[in-house]
């Protein structure tokens, strides 16, 4: 595969173009062309399609798009371009998986195929959602680490420290980032799972300086750092600096890509192709060990509307059918803790991604923007469901995309209109309202609610194996 320093060199010497020209004349024009050429059409009647030919056309469109567009470096205002051979070589040389974590918690995140009985890797946590205090962060992180089926944890983000808001780029960010890592490591130890990998290093950091600085306070090379693309198809020197640092240190990164429905890629069809093209960018430019998509709606900031479920499903299928580089998809729900809305959203999302061949991260509950609206129960549910429809589905047969589609069609009408409604009505409750602050246990009200939801979903033909909250 082309070297990282060759990528950096191209960021410094590639064709110059303005950002607006890149957005409007290159990305927008090319996405529209390949969507038409490969006849990609959104089908709201089938949010989880089973059309292999369509999935393969999406892949071809994405490769062609990336070949013609490349990645834009906002710092140098230059395009990083690759040849067809370089893209092909990178995909052929890509890692099939990555070992993460240490000791008893060491596990392998591997690529999967659609309708696979292979166990999906379960990264269960907060996706960087903000918490109000270090105490809440410690409690929630310990709860995540205690989920027996999890393989890794995404930590919350510490945004208030000693009563002060942390500020990006300031010394407070550096200190908060360090505390974030130390508190989570201690939470994992208290949960009896000291080797559990942190999957979103480091939630509180924004700059390369904070990321690198805090790495010396408990991050391990068996953890994962986030290297997030700038919308759309862009990076900057800061991201490339993190990539250079991680390469030198032997650390792993994920190719975080959160394109927006309604943004430069346009509607669902363009978003699908663009998101799939990020598979190449994550591998070649971010130098990550897997792709990490979490597309959301421009207005509703979640990834669970019918159109986005279709995108998640087909992106999963396109990548997993045509590439052996793993993907870990990330859920952003609109509903919060102890709302039916969240559990319905999570069900449809897990069905679309896991049957499409994904590993999963759950997730950004209540859009991951509301202080303390998160508990360990929400990701645990998604993890249980993911196993129930894949490795634990019985008779060596996983749930098919067709079966998943039928269930999705039944559940989607129960929540999709609420996405457009008042967000306060679906926010649910805060951690401190749902958990006993002395015993770290969920309230009986939430336990009953959880078990009732599992019964409801179970009636649709899904057999849950576990009952962690009996």
């Amino acid at each position, binding site marked *: 595969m082309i070297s990282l320093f060759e990528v950096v060199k191209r960021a410094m010497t590639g064709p110059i173009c303005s950002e607006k020209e890149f957005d409007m004349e290159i990305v927008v024009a090319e996405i529209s062309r390949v969507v038409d050429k490969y006849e990609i059409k959104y089908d709201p009647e089938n949010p989880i399609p089973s059309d292999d030919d369509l999935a393969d056309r999406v892949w071809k469109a994405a490769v062609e798009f990336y070949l013609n567009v490349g990645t834009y470096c906002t710092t140098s205002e230059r395009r990083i371009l690759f040849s067809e051979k370089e893209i092909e070589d990178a995909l052929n040389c890509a890692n099939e998986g990555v070992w993460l974590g240490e000791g008893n918690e060491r596990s392998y995140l591997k690529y999967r195929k659609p309708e696979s009985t292979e166990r999906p890797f379960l990264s269960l946590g907060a996706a960087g959602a903000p918490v109000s205090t270090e105490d809440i962060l410690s409690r929630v992180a310990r709860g995540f680490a205690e989920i027996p089926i999890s393989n890794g944890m995404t930590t919350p983000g510490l945004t208030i420290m000693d009563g002060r808001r942390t*500020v*990006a780029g300031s010394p407070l960010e550096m200190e*908060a980032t360090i505390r974030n890592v130390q508190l989570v490591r201690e939470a994992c130890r208290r949960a009896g799972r000291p080797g559990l990998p942190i999957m979103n290093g480091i939630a509180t950091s924004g700059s390369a300086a904070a990321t690198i600085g805090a790495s010396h306070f408990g991050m391990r090379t068996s953890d994962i750092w986030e290297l997030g693309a700038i919308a759309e198809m862009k990076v900057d020197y800061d991201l490339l600096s993190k990539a250079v640092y991680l390469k030198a240190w032997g650390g792993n990164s994920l190719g975080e890509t959160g394109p927006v429905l*309604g943004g430069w890629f346009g509607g669902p069809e363009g978003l699908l192709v663009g998101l799939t093209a990020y598979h190449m960018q994550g591998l070649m430019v971010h130098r990550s060990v897997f792709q990490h998509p979490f597309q959301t709606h421009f207005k509703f900031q979640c990834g669970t509307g019918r159109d986005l479920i279709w995108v998640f499903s087909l992106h999963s299928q396109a990548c997993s059918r045509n590439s052996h580089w793993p993907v870990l998809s990330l859920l952003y729900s609109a509903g919060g803790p102890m709302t039916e809305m969240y559990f319905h959203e999570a069900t449809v999302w897990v069905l679309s991604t896991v049957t499409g061949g994904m590993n999963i991260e759950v997730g950004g509950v209540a859009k991951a923007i509301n202080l303390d609206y998160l508990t360990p129960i929400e990701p645990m549910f998604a993890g249980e469901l993911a196993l129930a429809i894949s490795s634990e589905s019985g008779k060596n047969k996983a749930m098919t995309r067709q079966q998943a589609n039928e269930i999705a069609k039944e559940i989607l009408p129960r929540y999709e209109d609420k996405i457009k409604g008042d967000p306060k009505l679906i926010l649910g409750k805060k951690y401190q309202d749902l958990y006993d602050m002395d015993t770290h246990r969920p309230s009986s009200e939430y336990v009953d609610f959880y078990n009732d939801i599992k019964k409801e979903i179970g009636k649709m033909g899904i057999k849950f194996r576990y009952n962690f909250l009996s």
Partner: protein
Amino acid sequence: MSTEVILIKLKECIINGDKGGLLAAVDAGLSENLSPMELIDKMTDVMKEVGEKFECGEAFLPEMVKAADAWKVAVAFLEPKLPEGQTAQKKAGRIVIGTVQGDMHDLGKNIVVAFLKTVGFETMDVGIDASPSKLIDAAQEFNADIIGASALLTTTMPYQGSIIEHLEARNLRDKFKVIVGGGPVNQEWADEIGADGYASDAAKAAKLCMRMING
């Protein structure tokens, strides 16, 4: 070309972002004795339609930007032809907008800019990672009515508050209205930092700005 055909052409060209075609249609309109202001009003109506399509998911950011760019070129062509004392921006105002310091997320801000253009605002977009001073200096230079500040990260939200503190320190607080937005931002936050307004999406931001200008 009849007036009806010209207006249809005008609409088509804005929706397709066809600047050359739009200028030709505008020229044809002038030949048919449509006044520059009438043409600007018709084009502004089309822009509002594009905004509505975006709102209901029938159009997306690329269509908005293309339409706004074409509209801007045509307005610039017509403005010198307006009678003295009349301006194309009579109903709207001027806004300086940017993503705050430390924040590289600009998609939401871009959508707001496109929406503001559809309702006739003159906009100066200072881009991402904009310090309070950068926004304020730009607002002074542009003679803006409003400063708009977007933040997508909880750790960059405090910079929205810094803008207000800087305005106060420079005795400029009364000169500009400040509106804030972005994923984690809400009305409570806007109240806490003393912002003049908050909007949860681009369409609401455009309406908020209109209210601020028109009272």
